[in-house]
C-alpha cells in the first residue's frame, strides 16, 4: 500500500519537475515576451498541479489537503489573470520586444 502510494508520489512529483524544466527551457529559448509568458504560465502551473497531486497522499487530514488544492487553484487563478494583464501591457507598450515581421 505505502509503496504504491509512494510510487504515485514519485511519478507525479517527477512529472511536475519535468514541467518546471520545460517551462524554464521555454523561457530561455522562446524569442519574444508573449511566447515566453505562454511557456511560463502553462508549464509551471501544470508542474505545481502535479507536485500538489503528488503531495496529497502525504498530508494528514482533510483540511491540509484542501489547503493544498486551494493553493493550486489560487496560483491558477492569479496566473491566468496576471499573465493576461502582462500580455496586454506587453502589447500596448513594447512593439519592439516582439519579433520583427
Amino acid at each position, binding site marked *: 500500500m505505502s509503496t504504491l502510494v509512494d510510487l504515485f508520489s514519485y511519478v507525479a512529483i*517527477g512529472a511536475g519537475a519535468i514541467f518546471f*524544466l520545460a517551462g524554464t527551457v521555454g*523561457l530561455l529559448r522562446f524569442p519574444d515576451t508573449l511566447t515566453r509568458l505562454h511557456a511560463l504560465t502553462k508549464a509551471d502551473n501544470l508542474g505545481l498541479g502535479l507536485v500538489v497531486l503528488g503531495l496529497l497522499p502525504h498530508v494528514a487530514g482533510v483540511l*491540509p489537503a484542501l489547503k493544498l488544492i486551494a*493553493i493550486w487553484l489560487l*496560483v491558477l*487563478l492569479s496566473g491566468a489573470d*496576471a499573465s493576461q494583464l502582462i500580455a496586454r*501591457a506587453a502589447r500596448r507598450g*513594447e512593439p519592439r520586444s516582439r519579433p520583427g515581421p
Partner: protein
Amino acid sequence: MAEFLLGAAGFVLAMVALGLVRILRGPGDADRMMAAQLLGSGGIAALLLGGAAIGDDTVVDVSLTLALLAAFASIAFVQFAPPSSPGAPDDEERT
C-alpha cells in the same frame, strides 16, 4: 522519500533560478513582471516539497500566503508599470 522530496525541491529551485536569469535580463518590463509569476508557482512548489520533506505541515500556510500575495505582486506590477516602458535603459535605439 524525504531525500527525493528535497531533491525535487532543489531541482525546482534551480529551474526558478535559471528562469530568473532570463526574466531579469528584460529587455522590457513585461518580461520582468513575470518574475512574480515564476516565483509564485516555482517557489511555492519548492516550499511545499521542502516542507513535506522535513515533515512540517505548517509550511502549507506559508505557501497559501505566498499564493495569495504572488498574485497581488503581479497585479501591482501591471497596474503601476508605465505602459510606455522602454526597453533596457542602455538601449541606444531608444528615441
